[in-house]
């Protein structure tokens, strides 16, 4: 672009993370654990379990983020790892558990539009689909912990599935949070040098805070706790 100063070429290869290196192995392992946590959420009916699985998933994400940060000596990613651990691993689960589940006495999620086994099977299909559409062989050779990209896509889809098959708004919240974890896993695996990763993390955490606040602080919590999203039918059409 004429006029804009061309900066010194920064090697685009800084984000190479070989699948066979120790760091690559650890990131892949973390992604698999995160996928398992998502499946555990899909296969459970207890609100408290959702929160525990989500917290576990977030801690694993923070670990993976720390591994990549260590590998690239990236201050941004260290920051992201700590924010992830503090907010997603600790604060959000505590807030959801304490503010929403205990005060609203939420125990068992009965607002499922499909049975557990059905949603697990759909989840498995979506995971397969993710591997199908992310052409691992097309990703530049050895650039990333390749399977982490497909796994993160699967996480995004599973989070979406959770939002679709679960009608209760707290379950939808957890679904959205899983999707978000998937996006960040993809981000650190594919484009570790993405410049706005920390800011993006902070803003999406703010969204989570707003969502939790809408459910809790508002005077309608009682009604929402009894209702499910499918019964929120005043606004239709």
């Amino acid at each position, binding site marked *: 672009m004429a006029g804009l100063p061309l900066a010194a070429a920064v090697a*685009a290869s800084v984000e190479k993370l070989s699948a066979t290196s120790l760091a690559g192995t650890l990131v892949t392992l973390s992604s698999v654990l995160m996928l398992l946590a998502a499946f555990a959420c899909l296969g459970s009916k207890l609100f408290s379990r959702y929160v525990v699985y989500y917290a576990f998933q977030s801690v694993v994400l923070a670990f993976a983020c720390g591994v990549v940060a260590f590998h690239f000596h990236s201050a941004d990613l260290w920051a992201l790892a700590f924010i992830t651990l503090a907010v997603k691993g600790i604060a959000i689960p505590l807030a959801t558990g304490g503010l929403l589940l205990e005060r609203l006495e939420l125990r068992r999620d009965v607002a499922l539009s499909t049975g557990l086994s059905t949603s697990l099977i759909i989840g498995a299909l979506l995971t397969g689909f993710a591997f199908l559409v992310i052409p691992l062989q097309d990703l530049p050779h050895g650039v990333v912990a390749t399977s982490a990209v497909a796994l993160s896509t699967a996480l995004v889809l599973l989070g979406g599935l959770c939002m679709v098959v679960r009608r209760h708004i707290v379950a939808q919240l957890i679904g959205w949070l899983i999707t978000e974890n998937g996006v960040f896993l993809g981000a650190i695996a594919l*484009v570790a040098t993405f410049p*706005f990763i920390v800011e993006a993390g902070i803003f999406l955490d703010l969204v989570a805070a707003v969502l939790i606040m809408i459910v809790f602080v508002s005077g*309608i919590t009682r009604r929402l706790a009894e209702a499910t999203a499918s019964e929120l039918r005043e606004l239709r059409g």
Partner: protein
Amino acid sequence: MTALVLIVVVLPLLGGLAVVARASSWLTGAAMVAGGAGAFAGAVVLAVRVTRSGAFHAWSGFIYVDSLSAFFAVVVSLVVVLASLGSAAYVSVEQERGNFSQFQVRLYFVSFSVFASAMLAVFLTGNLGLLWILIEASTLASVVLVGLEARTRSLEAAWKYVIISSFGVTIALVATLFLFYSASALHLGPDQRLTWAYLFAHGHSLAPASMRLAFLLAVVGYGTKVGLVPMHTWLPDAHSEAPSPVSAMLSAGLLNTGMYAIIRYRAIASAVLGTAYPSRVLLLFGFLSVFIGVMFLVLGGNFKRLFAYSSVEHMGVISVALGFGGVLGVYGALLQVLTHAIGKAVLFLSSGHVVLGYRTRESAKVRGMLGSLPLAGAVLLLASLAVAGSPPFGVFLSELTIVRAGFAGSAVVGPVLAGLLVLLLVIGFISLLATTVGMVSGEGPPAGSVVAYPKLSGRVLAAVPLVGGLAVLGVLGLWVPAGLNELIMHSVRVVL
């Protein structure tokens, strides 16, 4: 120039500052209006400068203004002025009636000013990562406004709004990641790999496969904010439950920020992949939106929801225009952005009079507005004529341009699509008018029972944006001023 850009972004915050300084609500309203007017003046100066001397950038591309950004900044800052005037009048009435507490009023003005400022900032950055953050920030600021009335329905709308559009914005983040990834082969620093001007200039060396994905995800992600079908479901709820000046800001401001992002992505995608693929995607989403929007217009009911569906329809028309492409198509799209923004702002502001006067949002319960609220009734009728695309208003001109762009397109498909568009627009026209004519005519409630603004000062304040906006719209239908025409032509060239 950098200072001017910062002024445009910071001035709308004046209202929020007035709240922090504990000014009276009258003074706060005045600060809001003054800030909006200042931002509008600044945006016009920016537009004149970039049209004369080309794009401007500073802070390694974080500030970037070309004709397209200046055009959108002018449109949205004009909407901010109109909505600030409306807000000042609306909020004081709600406060006097005891519907808003002091705290809610303060919250309203702070969120409103942050919302306005974030939207204007979206247009003035060249960095697509920062653009993502600013769009998300505008969502967060506006969700407070949607849920402000704190009734069950408005909180439900706020929940739906924030969870659906945040999901969309998360998808847009993935789009940004893939865009960044597609520039891996370029020897650019991380920030530059997100700078629009570089990406557009180096389109030929971006990776096509990930660019294709990035564009599709951007249309889905930012399209959620635009209200493209099928990601539009939050839109009618949020628009109908928010206070009317906020609905005006959402419909005429926020939707355009999403559209702006899509236009930027479309430009890069066309440079990498050629125009066929982006056109097909935009035509598909565009026609779906026009169709669904029009179908809900036919159903009638809550008039604010109706106007919201009309926004879905119009955003669809703009996507279709971008899909038709070419100079004519993009010109029509941009003109439609301007005329729809003004028309819809006026329409939602006049619906505020109805809500305050009749205390209902059901169109069936509103009759005889011409007798009970003569000015608001007349403006509502004229504005709905304008928005539906009747001559002599601006929307007619822009829609005509878009249809012509369709006929100028490929041999068979173009005219067929253009014909289909005309058919849908005509159905939309009839349905929207059927509702609003019903509202303004007929036997109204007894004289004196319907009062929107009890004080004369409030009545004048609320009337200014209605009359002013309608006048601008009327002028645009008859004559596009040379300066504006030049600005739009420059903007078209920026993205072709």
